């Protein structure tokens, strides 16, 4: 009801009567049944006048898929490299905190010459930098189970924004980080007061404290008013709502780097500090629940690597027998989602299509069996296998689940 009211108000504008007709017909059935040509002619009616905020078309409904702990980006509904901010995935450990930007503070202390507290205004005074990069949760994987799952279900815990803020190296110089400091603790001000230990080298290399996302203040769900950004590293390390950085000479062994975000690997070992996200790609079109027609199809998708730029994406349209290079959309950026396309003619036969990413280190995205062979069947986190979509004779596109064995 409230949603209806809102749309009504948005559409009503100065042209009450005709717009109401549109609102009525647009609820529920419009997309399925189509509107009669005569129902509403936008050329015969002045539309709503300029407003304070833009809106999505009432015909578009991209939505994240929330669970108790996360909310996934609808990759199959998006077109370019940037994730609209309200569709950026969410993962947090105790909900989204409400932080007043006027009382926000970031304290940097420990092995530094000048322990300092920065207000948000202080952070914004420093020379700023913008960069586009992805953030992906290292739990961004779904065990193969059924055909009816979408790109969003399989790997919707990755999103990309343009982030603006101050380089952490600038702040490190400001406080005078002791050359003997090897790790720092990053602490959030959510109800989990979430912490991670990060090697200082990443702080000098490309870490940032960011306060803006896609041109506006960062969203609460992404860490308002400021978060750590560690390009290419598992999302959990880019601590949101950051309130404290403590320089130290060793890791703190917090719960999120021991009990969680570690993965069993061969010989009973438990792998820790697996920071970097390996290269991955996924075809986002055609994918479940798309319906194909015979003829030319532009296969589209995303590829990314936490180790640098995507060098190449290869697409197979014959279930992995042969591979062909896809076209990469420029700009191809460091540690960033890269959009790829591959033109293909579907002749109506049953087949499977899939993509694999190759990054600038020469790493080739593995298959599920290769990952299991390397790490063991009980592994978890950092799973980046090639994803295949099965195209059935009737044009139905479904996920092609491989056995987890």
């Amino acid at each position, binding site marked *: 009801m409230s949603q209806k009211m809102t749309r009504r108000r948005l559409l009503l504008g100065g042209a009450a009567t005709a717009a109401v007709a549109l609102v009525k017909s647009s609820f529920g059935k419009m997309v399925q049944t189509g509107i009669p040509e005569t129902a509403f002619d936008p050329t015969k009616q002045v539309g709503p006048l300029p407003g304070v905020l833009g809106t999505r078309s009432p015909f578009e409904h991209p939505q994240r898929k929330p669970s108790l702990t996360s909310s996934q980006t609808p990759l199959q509904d998006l077109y370019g490299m940037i994730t609209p901010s309200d569709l950026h995935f969410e993962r947090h450990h105790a909900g989204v905190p409400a932080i007043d930007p006027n009382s926000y503070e970031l304290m940097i202390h420990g092995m530094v010459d000048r322990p300092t507290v920065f207000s948000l205004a202080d952070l914004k005074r420093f020379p700023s930098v913008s960069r586009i990069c992805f953030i992906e949760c290292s739990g961004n994987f779904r065990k193969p189970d059924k055909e009816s799952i979408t790109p969003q279900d399989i790997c919707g815990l990755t999103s990309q924004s343009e982030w603006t803020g101050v380089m952490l190296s600038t702040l490190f110089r400001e406080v005078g980080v002791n050359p003997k400091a090897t790790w720092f603790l990053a602490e959030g001000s959510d109800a989990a007061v979430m912490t991670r230990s990060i090697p200082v080298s990443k702080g000098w290399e490309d870490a940032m404290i960011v306060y803006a996302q896609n041109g506006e203040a960062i969203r609460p769900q992404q860490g308002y008013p400021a978060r750590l950004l560690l390009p290419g590293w598992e999302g959990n390390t880019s601590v949101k709502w950051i309130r404290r950085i403590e320089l130290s000479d060793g890791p703190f062994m917090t719960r999120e780097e021991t009990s969680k975000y570690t993965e069993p690997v061969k010989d009973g070992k438990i792998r820790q500090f697996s920071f970097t996200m390996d290269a991955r790609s996924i075809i986002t079109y055609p994918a479940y629940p798309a319906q194909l027609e015979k003829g030319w199809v532009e296969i589209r998708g995303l590829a990314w690597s936490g180790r640098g730029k995507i060098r190449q994406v290869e697409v197979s349209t014959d279930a992995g027998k042969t591979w062909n290079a896809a076209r990469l959309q420029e700009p191809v950026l460091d540690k960033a989602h890269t959009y790829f396309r591959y033109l293909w003619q579907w002749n109506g036969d049953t087949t499977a299509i899939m993509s694999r990413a190759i990054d600038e280190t020469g790493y080739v995205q593995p298959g599920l069996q290769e990952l299991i062979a390397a790490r063991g069947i*009980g592994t978890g986190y950092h799973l980046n296998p090639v994803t295949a979509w099965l195209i059935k004779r009737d044009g139905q596109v479904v996920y092609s689940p491989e056995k987890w064995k």
Partner: protein
Amino acid sequence: MPFWACVAGTLMIACERRNTAIPVHFGYGRTATEKEIATKAIAIRPDGKGLPAGSGTVQNGALIYAAKCASCHGTTGVEGPYNILVAPDTVDAPPFDQAPKRVKAIGNYWPYATTIFDYVRRAMPFNAPGSLSDNEVYSVTAWLLHANKLIGADAVINAKTLPGIVMPARRYYVTDSRKGGDGPYE
């Protein structure tokens, strides 16, 4: 550009630009006081640095656990509905990489006992985070360690004893060695 080049007057503009480009110190922010550092720096290191004064016992921990934790983690720590806190097996059970269903909990997966204190003090109980006193956190930590068969029923847990507890899973921990490139998958 070395300093003498500026003095000599050659390429003066480039020098100036460079000198103003990145000051080492902008002077923004305010000095953090000893006191605020002491109250805010709550992280506990595995060597025990950061642990507060106070102590706790298994007996007291049992009472706190029953009152404030059991509703979410089960009467004995294995019933849920949320995270299982007590390992149903020992560290020598079939290794995790071969046993996808094996439950990971404090006794068979956590590498450091200090993590329990640090995490519970910041984040638990989930519905009232940060509400336990340091002594209560010590006690409930003691109970969790005892329930995981890592300490005896009469052990006392404090800043001295907690870091000394050897967690059996620790010897299985390795640091990530993936490097990308075209070598074998890790």
